[in-house]
């Protein structure tokens, strides 16, 4: 049977069903939407500095057991580029465009989301959030296969798929899903960027051979895999176990509270309902947005652990679920 989650024939059709939107004072929303270079330079600067420090510690300790804790920290920070690339794809952290774009390209490479493809795919995700056959970014397909989700604790399933996409694009062929959401005029950009990715992959392999060491791979590309568990745990909270095919982010998307360290690593995407309702609001203003609309939204889980206490039984139930494909 063909995969019902692959984008189907009418995937590009407009959908006139209105989405639920909470009421919020325009002046407050305008204030929350403001970009703040200073805040983001500090936040992103800290992230880069921690990456540099843990990476340097790992290199200096290479060959000893001490490199393990250093690269564990480095890997977690490196894989969290996934959340930063996401936020940067919306263009919300920085007021200065080139800063936003340059960091988007960097974080996109780190998480192996080629920037042009991902921007279009994510645009589709925001238009048709969790609509089966229309949204190409539904992370959990029903019936749920737990093996795939576990493999992705080390990015093995999604990472392999993303690398396969990059290779295919580098060969000048756009994936079937991509043909749905990337306008023709934009496709050469995807192909060009994918070729640059492949050139970097080859340079990295050459460096490993020349240096007789895996260190180059441990520093680049590799950490997205070995450090990816927390990123997977965060990403699955966004929609897993919730309703597909509804025009209401309160039913398809999850917000949870968590500690400042996790919020830093996850770029405040624990406020995911709020992010979907108002994608113009930068990460740093999401707590205020949450406060402004919380009376119109379901109560969030009080912690990441509590969120997973809801998700896990739902995933286990969905191992036998049938997929409902919405028609609009």
């Amino acid at each position, binding site marked *: 049977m063909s995969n019902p989650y692959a984008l189907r024939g009418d995937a590009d059709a*407009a959908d006139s069903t209105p989405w639920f939107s909470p009421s919020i004072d325009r*002046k407050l929303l*305008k204030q929350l*939407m*403001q*970009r703040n270079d200073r805040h983001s330079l500090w936040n992103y600067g800290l992230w880069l500095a921690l990456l540099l420090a843990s990476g340097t510690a790992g290199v200096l300790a290479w060959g000893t057991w001490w490199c393990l804790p250093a690269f564990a920290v480095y890997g977690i920070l490196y894989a969290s580029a996934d959340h930063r690339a996401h936020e940067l794809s*919306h*263009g*919300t952290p920085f*007021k200065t465009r080139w800063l936003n774009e340059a960091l988007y390209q960097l974080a996109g490479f780190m998480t192996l989301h080629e920037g*042009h493809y991902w*921007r*279009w795919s994510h*645009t589709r995700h*925001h*238009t048709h959030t969790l609509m089966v056959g229309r949204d190409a970014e539904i992370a959990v397909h029903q019936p749920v296969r737990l093996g795939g989700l576990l493999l992705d604790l080390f990015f093995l399933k999604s990472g392999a798929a993303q690398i396969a996409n990059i290779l295919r694009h580098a060969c000048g062929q756009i994936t079937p899903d991509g043909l749905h959401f990337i*306008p023709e*005029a*934009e496709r050469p950009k995807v192909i060009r960027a994918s070729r640059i990715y492949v050139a970097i992959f080859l340079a990295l392999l050459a460096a490993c051979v020349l240096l007789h060491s895996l260190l180059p791979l441990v520093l680049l590309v590799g950490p997205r895999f070995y450090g990816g568990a927390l990123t997977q745990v965060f990403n699955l909270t966004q929609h897993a176990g919730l309703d597909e095919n509804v025009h209401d982010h309160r039913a398809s998307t999850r917000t949870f509270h968590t500690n400042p360290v996790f919020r830093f690593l996850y770029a405040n995407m624990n406020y995911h309902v709020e992010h979907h309702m*108002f*994608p*113009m609001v930068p990460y740093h203003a999401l707590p205020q947005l949450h406060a402004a609309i919380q009376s119109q939204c379901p109560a969030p889980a009080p912690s990441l652990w509590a969120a997973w206490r809801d998700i896990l039984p739902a995933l286990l139930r969905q191992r036998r679920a049938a997929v409902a494909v919405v028609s609009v």
Partner: protein
Amino acid sequence: MAHWTEVCALDDIDNEDVMRFDHNNHTYAVYRLNGKVYATDGLCTHEKVHLADGLVMEHVVECPKHNGRFDIRDGRALGAPVCVHLKTYPAKVEGGQVLVQLG
């Protein structure tokens, strides 16, 4: 002769902000920026979302749905996911009122 349509009082729009204006079954977006006013089509060329719900930053309006950006002075689409330019209309302030020369 050009026909100017009265939209609102200048003070009805905050500085560096945008307001929706509907006229003859068409939606426009009218902007106020540092003493000047601008007018464009009101719907984003990407997925027909009201730009009046977006954010004005200097001479750029950002769409609330996917953050597509347009230059409000000439309607230029500034990059993915907006690829089609926005139609603009002449606008001016006279006697404290915003006037737009509609299509």
